[in-house]
């Protein structure tokens, strides 16, 4: 399996590629993987279990990252450090599964932003990175 992660800033596109090996695959229950080369070191597991009281499905993601120091510092500054990224990915997955879309405000109108607001843009959804393919025209 050769997944590709794309991150694009206004100024440059950045692509990270790696190969993964599937360690475990129980359909509907668990999938585990480990990277085996390429530019990213990561390993993880997604577990699906029935929620208590029959109220749906609990999804647990365990993910381990090893990143270069520079990449790690940058990601923390722009607010997309790995832990938060996993949490947001889970949140996006839940929204997609329950509603067919991920809530967003990128692309909405606003007045002049000013200096501080411009710097803070990455904190708010306006610059949030979403999985590729979700910016397709919806109408």
């Amino acid at each position, binding site marked *: 399996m050769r997944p590709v992660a794309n991150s694009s800033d206004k100024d440059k596109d950045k692509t990270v590629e790696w190969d993964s090996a599937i360690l475990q695959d129980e359909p509907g229950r668990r999938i585990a993987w480990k990277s085996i080369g390429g530019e990213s070191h990561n390993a993880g597991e997604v577990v699906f279990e029935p929620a208590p009281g029959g109220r*749906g499905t609990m999804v647990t993601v365990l993910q381990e990252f090893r990143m270069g120091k520079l990449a790690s510092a940058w990601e923390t500054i722009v607010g997309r450090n790995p832990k938060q990224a996993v949490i947001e990915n889970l949140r996006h997955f839940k929204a997609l599964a329950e*509603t067919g879309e991920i809530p967003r405000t990128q692309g909405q109108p606003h*007045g002049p932003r000013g200096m501080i607001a411009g710097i803070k843009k990455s904190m708010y959804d306006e610059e949030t990175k979403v999985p590729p393919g979700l910016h397709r025209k919806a109408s």
Partner: protein
Amino acid sequence: MKALCWMGSGKVEVHNVSDPTILNPHDAIVKITRTAICGSDLHLYDGFIPTMEEGDILGHEFMGIVEDTGKGVTNLQRGDRVVVPFTIACGNCEFCKKKIWSACDNTNPNAHLMEAAYGYSGSGLFGYSHMMGGYAGGQAQYVRVPFANVGPLKIESDLPDEKVLFLSDIFPTGYMAAENAQIQGNDTVAVWGCGPVGQFAIASAFMLGAARVIAIDRLPERLELARSIGAITVDYSEEDVSVLTALKDLTGGIGPDSCIDAVGLEAHSAQLQGIYDKVKTALMLETDRPSVLRQAIQSVRKGGTVSIPGVYGGLLDKVPFGAAFGKGITMKMGQTNMHNYMKPLLERIEKRQIDPSYIISHRITLEEAPDMYKVWRDKKQNVTKIVIDPWAT
């Protein structure tokens, strides 16, 4: 299009901005025909609400004509007249299914911000800070409405906009406040705050069977409106008036059965507690001023209910919780579950049981809005409610 933008504390300006577009499959674009300024917009204007950024478009009470729909919207089409609820709900998460629409899991793109403050995030709102979604609001000529298949209410009759506009927020909010007050027939209900939400809480309390409603405020125009719909009024700014004593006297010593706090975090009090709260908030040791909440808890009868539609944001200080426990009171509160109330309340309007437009005092253009924010904040010109036609010049 033209839109009213927050540009800092005490500063709103009309700017030319890009028109909204369909971004998600369940979006609709609505051309706004009428919108309003809400009392809670004044919290934004005064800088009480964190995570506002220069350029944010304000406004969460609006209605208009559907211009365009995403491919996931099958119940609305171009040309439909709709009133849009200020909370955004997906309709399919556990909370929406439990009819707690204001707690929707899937409509806040910045949920991590609210989680940091509150532990969990509620639904996104229009025009009310990035923590609550960062959605562009409706004090503008067009707006993008997410989950248009869930929220907007179609208006099929030819009732004028003014009579149905307040289904977007304040009428359901006042009604839910009265519902939360758990009113039984023959009850006496006390309502603090006779702004628009308080007005609809008073009207709804009568609709739900209250025998008597006591309305508390200090502004003559608000007290007059409250009397016009049948409430007894108490002016707390009058010399020698103690609200607690007045409520005891009016109820033969037992206290009101239910108390509704339609004031919230920016409460004013002439007494010592008011000075305490002002100093503490100035020093940032307290974020909210709960004078009304204290009075409600103190005055409600034993076993009574305190209903809180008034917005609170942060931390309170010196709340008489011993009194609350000792009297065994119930407190019910929260952001309005709009989707439960819009249709039934529209029916009441159509049956002429209430004409919500009675609270409107000012009808203005978008360009006049920045001045009116200041006028209303300073309580001048006897403002009770300001309605904007964003296309008028």
